[in-house]
């Protein structure tokens, strides 16, 4: 038997900066950042796979660091900077990570992709030339069921290389397999 819940309290109101744009949001005070982004700010690029912090799908950057938006209370974000996948493009151009993911088919179903892109962006911000092992470790909190991760590593490496200014083409083996 479930207890009768009191009616939901009035909405809370906060100001925050999402993708470098000051926004305001009103929401039921128990809502998470995930719910606010998707339902109150219309930013459905942030996905969710469990809402319990067990998959990494809902990853966004909070003050530049990857966090699980399903476990961040909206009220805790007053005045904070949030970055979602919608903020990754530079104007009309794709971010080098987005470009590399598209080029190598690193987004298959595309559902874990936004979270992985943001985790990778934070990684490259801290480490412009990560090794394969460093990429694996950084992405170990983002589950993907489609790709086996390999195209994702290759795309992060390709983007990192391009962001360092090396005009790089993807390794032939990534595209055609070994011959």
């Amino acid at each position: 038997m479930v207890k009768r819940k009191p009616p939901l309290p009035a909405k809370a109101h906060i100001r925050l900066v999402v993708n470098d744009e000051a926004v305001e949001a009103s929401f039921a005070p128990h809502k998470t950042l995930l719910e606010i982004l998707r339902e109150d700010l219309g930013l459905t690029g942030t996905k969710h796979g469990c809402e319990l912090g067990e998959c990494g799908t809902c990853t966004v950057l909070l003050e530049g660091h990857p966090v699980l938006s399903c476990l961040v209370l909206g009220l805790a974000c007053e005045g904070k900077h949030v970055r979602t996948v919608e903020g990754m493009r530079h104007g009309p151009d794709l971010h080098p990570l987005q470009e590399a993911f598209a080029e190598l088919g690193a987004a298959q179903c595309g559902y874990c992709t936004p979270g992985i892109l943001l985790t990778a962006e934070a990684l490259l911000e801290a480490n412009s030339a990560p090794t394969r092992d460093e990429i694996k470790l950084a992405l170990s909190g983002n589950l993907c069921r489609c790709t086996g991760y390999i195209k994702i590593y290759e795309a992060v490496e390709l983007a990192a290389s391009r962001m360092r200014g090396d005009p790089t083409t993807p390794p032939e083996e990534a595209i055609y397999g070994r011959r």
Partner: protein
Amino acid sequence: MLRLPSFTYHQPRTLRQALRIKRDAGPTAMYVAGGTDLYPNMKRRHQEPQVVVSLANVPGLRRIRGGTKGSVVSVGACVTLTELREHRHVRKKHSAVARAAELISTPILQNMGTVGGNICLDTRCNYYNQSYEWRKSINFCMKKDGEICWVAPSSPRCWAICSSDLAPVAVAMGAEFTLQDIDAERSIPARDFFRDDGIEYLTKRPDEILTEVRLPPANGWDAVYWKLRRREAFDFPVLGVAVWIEWDGAQVADARIVLGAVASYPLEVPEAAQAILGSRLEDDAIATAADAAYKPSKPMDNTDFGLAWRKHMTREYVKGALRELRKRHS
């Protein structure tokens, strides 16, 4: 989508304010730091606080201080696991602590989860860490809403396990915890912070706030932490082995061996430590210690992997941890 129940949220700016809000709100209030333990539990209706008091904005709780010239290292309870594992002094002088932190869940979660949160981590059990609806289908359990501990149905107690990675390390290392109440501060040894009960698993009073973890100065001792789990990310330990050793030249002068995730509290095994005292961690001494740790290690059927293998692994991991210490010392 799983959602939180409704509650009132407070973000006090001082410790005193936090303590007062909590006291005024009574037993229906809870503290939250990183939220990575409490919020999933609230979504599954394990905890249903009417009032949640955030410690995130309390100044002073997010600092790591000391450690210079052989002093105690004070780690604020709201230091994130990322900050802890990346802290230069902690990495260098308290590497077992940094190691335990970096083995917790995932790098993303480490950006959110805190030292205090991991130490106060709710005990876990796969009859308990389930949704309200799931738990209803076993008529709930003793830890929440029910009568029986399904892990041991004839038992009068709850057998949920301590799944913290930092807790066994803190106990092995002889860390001290600082607890703040509205009118007093007290310090207790880490080992006295935990209780052997799945429900009342801490000696901390509900209103008290764990404010800091005091790591002993690094001088002449060494410690390691080994964590067993299915995957190298996400998973809680199914076994943790923390070993602390004080060296006297080539010999072991003092030691503590503590097992995580096999009991409701970090299980210290003095017999195992005894077995290596005075030794140079020769293979025989290690084997004796591993056997001694194997005996009281009694995993229950409430987490990943089978019991027999987890028990078997106690021996293997104690051996491995001691060999690592031997290697580091040579």
